Structure formats: C-alpha cells, structure tokens
C-alpha cells in the first residue's frame, strides 16, 4: 500500500486538480449504481458486500518475491467481477475507509488516489480481460488483467508524484524516471504476485463457486 499518496503529500493545486479529474468518473459510476439499485433494491447489499470485500482484501498482507510484504490492490479482481464503473464508486469508498480506519492515504489526496486506483486500474483490468478472453485462455486473461492493472496504478501514481515534484534538472521527465525506477524495483514483483494470487482465487471460484459467480453476474448485466 505504499503506493497510496499520504495525507498532505500533494501541494494544494495538485490535490484539487486530481479531485476534479476523479469527480466525473465518480458521478458516472453513481448514476449507473442508482439505476441498478432502483430496479433491484436488494443488490445494494451485494454491492456493499463487494466494497467491504475489496477493503478487507486490500488490508491483507501478501508476500512479495523480493521478501518484503505488501498489500494487494484488489482492483483487478473487482473490475473482472463487478465491472469498471461500479468499481470506481466502490474503490472510492474503500479508499476513504482506508484513510479513516487504517490511516493509509488521506482526504486531500483521495482524489489522486481515486484516479490511479479506482479509475485507471479497473479500466485497464477490464479492457485487458475483455481483449484476452476471446483467445480462450481465461487464466492468462485473469493474470494479465490483475498484474497490468497493478502496474498501471503504479505508473499513474509515479506520474502524479513527478508532476507535483519536478526535479530541478530535467523537470517532469527526470522526476518520473526516479519515481518510476523506485516503483519498478518494489512493485513489479508485487504486480506479478497479485496476478498469480488472482488466478488462484479465480480457479477456486471456477471449481467451487459457480452459484456465487452467477449472483455476481447480476451486477454486471445490469451495469
């Protein structure tokens, strides 16, 4: 979870800018959620369950290849199971609770964290999963979607930090290279681990969780 931008880390203009960027996505997600829940009020609970599931998932420690421990983002799995627009709203709430209950992230940086983790991550996962599914290799699709969603999240976070803290020499580009290099060492192994983990969960769901998958498909068909 080191990729959460901590409270007060971004200067005021950038914090406000990322809030503005995230708002339209949040509104679109809310509108599609409102439509779903108007027709099926009981799905509200299921959506809340999905949010709580993502939160608990993100608070688990997973072993990274390099020996350190970190936390999965869960955005890949969430986007595959619930679709990207629903995941934006749920991801936003999850990020808020992470700030409130775990002191990870913050209120002023919530906008920036939402853009990287609740907007870009799920969109990338959804797009890759959709692109690879027709090849018939579902597990590869799940792995690539989860791992690349993670990577996309880190790239966006690195870019956000580089924009806020340009280097004196070389400006944005030099700063992006520095943040990118640090993330590449720590987060690429983590992305691979999360990909593998998501495939294991997927296998389990295919083997024992058919009825659960059917229930979840309800949300996707509606959105």
């Amino acid at each position: 979870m080191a990729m959460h931008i901590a409270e007060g880390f971004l200067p005021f203009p950038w914090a406000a800018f990322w809030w503005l960027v995230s708002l339209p996505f949040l509104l679109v997600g809310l509108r599609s959620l409102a439509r779903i829940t108007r027709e099926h009020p009981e799905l509200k609970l299921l959506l809340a369950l999905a949010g709580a599931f993502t939160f608990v998932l993100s608070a688990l420690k997973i072993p990274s290849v390099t020996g350190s421990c970190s936390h999965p983002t869960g955005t890949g799995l969430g986007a595959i199971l619930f679709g990207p627009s629903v995941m934006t709203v749920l991801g936003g709430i999850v990020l808020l609770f992470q700030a409130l209950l775990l002191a990870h992230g913050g209120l002023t940086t919530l906008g920036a964290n939402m853009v990287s983790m609740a907007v870009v991550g799920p969109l990338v996962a959804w797009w890759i999963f959709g692109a690879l599914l027709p090849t018939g290799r579902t597990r590869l699709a799940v792995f690539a979607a989860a791992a690349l969603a993670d990577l996309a999240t880190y790239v966006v976070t690195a870019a956000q930090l580089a924009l806020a803290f340009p280097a004196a020499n070389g400006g944005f580009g030099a700063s992006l290279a520095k943040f990118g290099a640090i993330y590449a060492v720590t987060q690429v192994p983590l992305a691979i681990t999360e990909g593998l983990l998501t495939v294991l969960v997927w296998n389990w769901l295919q083997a024992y969780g058919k009825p659960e998958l059917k229930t979840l498909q309800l949300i996707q068909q509606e959105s």
Partner: protein
Amino acid sequence: MSHRIDALAHGNRLRLLPPLHKACFAATMLVLALVAPVPVQVLIGLWLALWVVGYAGIPAGTYLAMLLLPLGFAVSSLPAIVISAAGQDGPAGMQADAWRGLSLPAAGWTLYISNHGLSQASALLARSLAATSALFFLLLTTPFSEWIQVLRRLRVPPLLLELMVHIYSFIFILWAIVDEIAVAQRARSGHSSWRRTLRSLGLLIGQLLERSLASYRGRALALEARGFQGDLRVVSCASHRVSRRYLAEAIGGCAVLGALSIAWQ
C-alpha cells in the same frame, strides 16, 4: 487496527461537541495546512496535538504511534525527491543545484543531493505533519456514525451514504471471518514457504468470498422478510452540547494562524 481508532473516537472527551463544528474546524485546519508557510504548519501540528492529547484525552503514546505511520510513508519517498542524477558531463544547472557541491559519480552518472529537492522535501514534511494532524483530530474525536450525519447535512448523495453504512458494517463481519481462517491456516503450517503462503492466501480469499456471500444471502432474506424497500433508517439519539470555551479557542486560534500565514507569506 480499526477497532482501536473506533474505540478511541467513541470514548474521547470531545465526543459531545457537535460533529459539524468539529468537521468545520478540521476542514479549516486542513486547508490552512495545505496553503500556509512552514512555521504555521508546524504550529498547526503542535496546536492539534494539544487538542487531541490535552482536550480529547487520547493517550500521547498512541497518538504519536499513529502519526509516525503516515509520516514514515512520507519519509520513505523522500530519497526520490532529494537525490538527483545528471549525465557525466552534467548540465550546468547541476553545480548550482548540488547541496554543498557534493556529488558522487556512479556508472556514467553523477548522483548528488539537490538543493531544490531538499527545499521540496522540507516543505512536504511540514505539510504532511499539519494535514495528517487535522485528519487525525477528526478521526479520533468523531465516530463514524457522526461522520455520516455530517455528510448527510452536506448533501452527499444518499445512495453513497447508504453504501458507506453497509460497507462499514460488513467490514467488521468479514474481518472476523478472515481472522478465523488465518488462525486455522497458521495452526496447520499454511505459511511455511512462499508457495504455501500464496496458496493459503488464494484459499482464504476464495473462502472469504463464499462465506461473505452466504452471510449476504442470510441478510438479504431477513431484510426482505421485513419489507425492505431499499432504504434503512436508523434512529439517532445522541445529544450534543456546544461548548463556548472550545468554540472560542477554535475560532481565535484559526484567526491567529490565518493572520500569521498571511504575514509570513
């Protein structure tokens, strides 16, 4: 983890102040923390520590440990800002930017501590301290249920609030399930190697999904049996009292800090 923050918030001595007042105070501090100069940011951190430890009665050790966690994250990303690299011949700007002219040649590159980076880093640390203090003041003095009341008065979409309330209650149910499964796995050497740990985690997440869906079905059935139409209304019977003493200190302090940040800009 979360139980701790929640328990502290429910038992703190500023519990009876109106949540809207506390939220306004914290929001003012947060904005001031982002725009004020460094000395004012440090003052904000100290003043809020007085509120949290002195007035709200949160143990100083607990508050310090909580502050160190996010500040630790901030510190861990400082090297990327402070250390810069330039090509061997080095652009002319490097000499001017290098701290005390120190530089370290490495593999065709020159590493140096950047003056520009140092000033960015010190501004960042002060800002993080002040903003985190403002967030923690609200976290430690206002329980979650009162946050929802405030957000409702701020006209946040009801659907969003409802989802938040449901998610909040589900989190604790799921967390208990995770605890049980994790204990069972540890007792059976589920984490003896890297591969096993990964397999155990996959099993845990799959099981968690199944068991949480089972608890969802039970809840949905129970709600439907009671005529659930889509919204859940809860009676709130907490009574709040306005304290003139705290109100005066908050307004006075905000005014002084605001004036100082304009004077020192």
